């Protein structure tokens, strides 16, 4: 005979009654106030434990008994001998080893999925996207960018000449020139259809082959669908995390976006490398030295070291738009701030995230360098140059 304490609900009126349930092999008697109910003990079902909550005992009727979680209850369940899937789950929850293994396993899974699964899925999806998506994407991004950009001050002839020169060597649908106060020398890929050059970049050199090298780098981003892939990656990542965690929203979403941001930076560095490779390949096939790209990186770096203050205000600007824009739910498909960083450009070296190649041994510098590398969307410029020079020698 087991005696359980708890609360009885008659299923019709709302008040619960303090009650006891006595269960033996032959009968079960529920007693509350001055009443008692006979129940067939074989019809009793005890719901699985959930934390230390009272557990509901039912008997195929609208009324039920909520039993305090006690040792007697565990004994009763042992004697009934019926066990559901949820009892098994509750058992898992009680075992410390299971919990530790589950925690580590989940972290490993998410890490592995983030590193291998998400890029693969995004790549596959990017190639089946309709072309119209990319065009639409570029249009809306350019509209937003144009708030901060002016019309190009380059002469129409110069623009037309560069257009013809670039596009004859590798076509995109749209190539624009813009005057950008503060951004300085820069180039953006907006999607597979569209590339934007700033006047500052064009004015940085008299050698059109150097500009072509930059164009090839951007073309690499465009051809390899890097912008589209970055967006799809955030979608895939958000979808998976939502599936795993069930429901995420509000601040939770913001926090889950952090590994995504770091992950994006890593993907983005990989994309830069790929775009460099693409540019090197194209340059070589035209008989132009890849060193032109390295030279351009030097120029861009030099141009930016004079204008750090401007760059700072810009990066802050971007940050603030980002934080307000991401208030809406779900992945941002048309976030200009994102696109700008994903949209990948040769010359972010100046965004304050530049490395300082002169003193690599300094510890503080190493720390900040690895920090920067973690956050940066570009590989360290000196590394890129070294890579390009090595590739140039391979000839």
């Amino acid at each position: 005979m087991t005696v359980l304490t708890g609360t009885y609900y008659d299923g019709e009126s709302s008040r619960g009654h303090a009650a006891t349930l006595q269960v033996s092999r032959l009968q079960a008697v529920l007693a509350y106030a001055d009443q008692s109910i006979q129940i067939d003990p074989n019809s009793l079902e005890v719901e699985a434990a959930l934390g230390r909550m009272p557990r509901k005992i039912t008997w195929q009727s609208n009324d039920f008994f909520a039993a305090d979680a006690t040792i007697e209850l565990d004994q009763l369940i042992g004697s009934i001998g019926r066990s559901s899937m949820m009892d098994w789950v509750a058992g898992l929850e009680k075992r410390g080893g299971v919990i530790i293994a589950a925690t580590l396993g989940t972290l490993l899974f998410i890490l592995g999925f983030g590193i291998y699964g998400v890029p693969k899925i995004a790549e596959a999806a990017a190639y089946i996207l309709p072309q119209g998506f990319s065009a639409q994407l570029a249009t809306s991004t350019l509209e937003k960018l144009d708030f901060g950009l002016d019309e190009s001050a380059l002469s129409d002839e110069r623009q037309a000449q560069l257009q013809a020169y670039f596009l004859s060597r590798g076509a995109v649908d749209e190539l624009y020139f813009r005057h950008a106060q503060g951004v300085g020398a820069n180039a953006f890929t907006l999607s597979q259809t569209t590339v934007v050059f700033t006047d500052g970049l064009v004015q940085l050199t008299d050698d059109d082959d150097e500009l072509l090298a930059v164009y090839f780098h951007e073309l690499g981003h465009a051809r390899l669908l890097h912008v589209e892939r970055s967006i799809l990656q955030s979608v895939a990542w958000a979808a998976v995390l939502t599936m795993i965690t069930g429901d995420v929203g509000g601040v939770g979403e913001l926090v889950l976006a952090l590994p995504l941001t770091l992950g994006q930076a890593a993907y983005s560095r990989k994309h830069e490398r790929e775009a460099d490779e693409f540019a090197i390949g194209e340059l070589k096939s035209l008989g132009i030295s890849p060193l032109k790209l390295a030279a351009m990186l030097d120029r861009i770096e030099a141009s930016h070291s004079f204008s750090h203050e401007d760059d700072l205000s810009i990066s802050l600007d971007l940050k603030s738009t980002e934080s307000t824009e991401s208030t809406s739910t779900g992945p941002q498909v048309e976030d200009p701030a994102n696109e700008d960083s994903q949209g990948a450009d040769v010359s972010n070296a100046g965004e304050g995230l530049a490395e300082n190649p002169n003193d690599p041994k300094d510890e503080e510098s190493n720390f900040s360098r690895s920090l920067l590398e973690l956050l940066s969307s570009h590989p360290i410029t000196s590394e890129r140059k070294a890579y390009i020079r090595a590739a140039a020698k391979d000839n």
Partner: protein
Amino acid sequence: MSEETSIEQTGGVSNVSNVSNVSNVSTPIPDPTLGRDPVRIPFKFHGDGGEFFRIWIVNIVLSILTLGIYSAWAKVRTKRYFYGNTELDGDRFDYLGDPVAILVGRILAIVLLVFYQALLGFAPSFFSGLIGLLFLAALPWVIYRALRFNAQMSSWRGIRFGFDGGWVGAAKAYLLWPLFGLVTLGFGMPYAWFKQNQYLLSNYRFGASTSTSTTEPNDFYLVALAVFGFASFGGLVLFGFTSSLGFNGMASDGEFNFDALFALGGLFAGALYFVFYVMIFAVYEARYFSTVYNNIEISGNYVGTSVSIVGLGRIVVGNAVLMLVTLGLYYPWARVRMTQYLQDNLWIDAVDLDSFVAKSSDGNDPLGEEIGEAFDIGIGL
């Protein structure tokens, strides 16, 4: 939706409707609650972060191992944990959703979603517009069914909640009025919130008793004003502060210190922006919650709350920072803390909670809720 859900949950909880006027036909005794002084009955939450962590992590692992199938069970288990640990007047709430039904709904929702995406991808633009319109027309129905399912699966003292709003009401509250808000450049949005709240609270019921809301449009304009004021004033101050900070970093002379200072300064500024963003959310959430929950009136029983911007902000910022630091593993504690705070600040000034009667319930319909979920519609108060 950590916070949202907990609010939604207490939302279900507090739509307690009244009962004092339910006249009993067989006994013509005058209503005993008339003129009775209300008694303040607080909500109590018994959840524990560590305990919920175990449930949460096992849910995640089983969901991954079963390729998502278990997630329906996981959802029910989570909801039951929060409902079952919420106590009012000595008795706890209960969530009665059936995982199998939820799974079926979830599969159907995914099929529909894939179908929709496929049509969008391959149909000519004219058709995709048409499909978009059809989809838009189906939304209110989905929202309404989701609200109803969630209410019907919630119970207290063995009596279920319910939701009687139709899809026409949902169309007005969730399409028409927000559209009005957009057309008026946001100035009509608080009015849309007001309409949504009216739709929810004049249709929720507990057993046979329907709730009402005593909010007025002005209340929601005050919410918007608080959020807007905080965001613009705080944003201005913060921008000025971080700019000056950035320039200080610039001014440093040492060549190699430059990077470190710049990086740390940037990180610090980023952290401030993060806290600021989180606080905007907290201001909105606290003001909206207070507005809604201080105005639920149930012929005699009144819900009340003392949730404040400072109190909620402390929880939300703390939670956000700890979740960042722990890579999200703090989530279960965060959710429990949030729920704990909301319930500690929620009560009912009750004249009679004892004589609610059940209403014979309508059929279960998880489909609506699951479709709503797959399309990521925020439902809740």
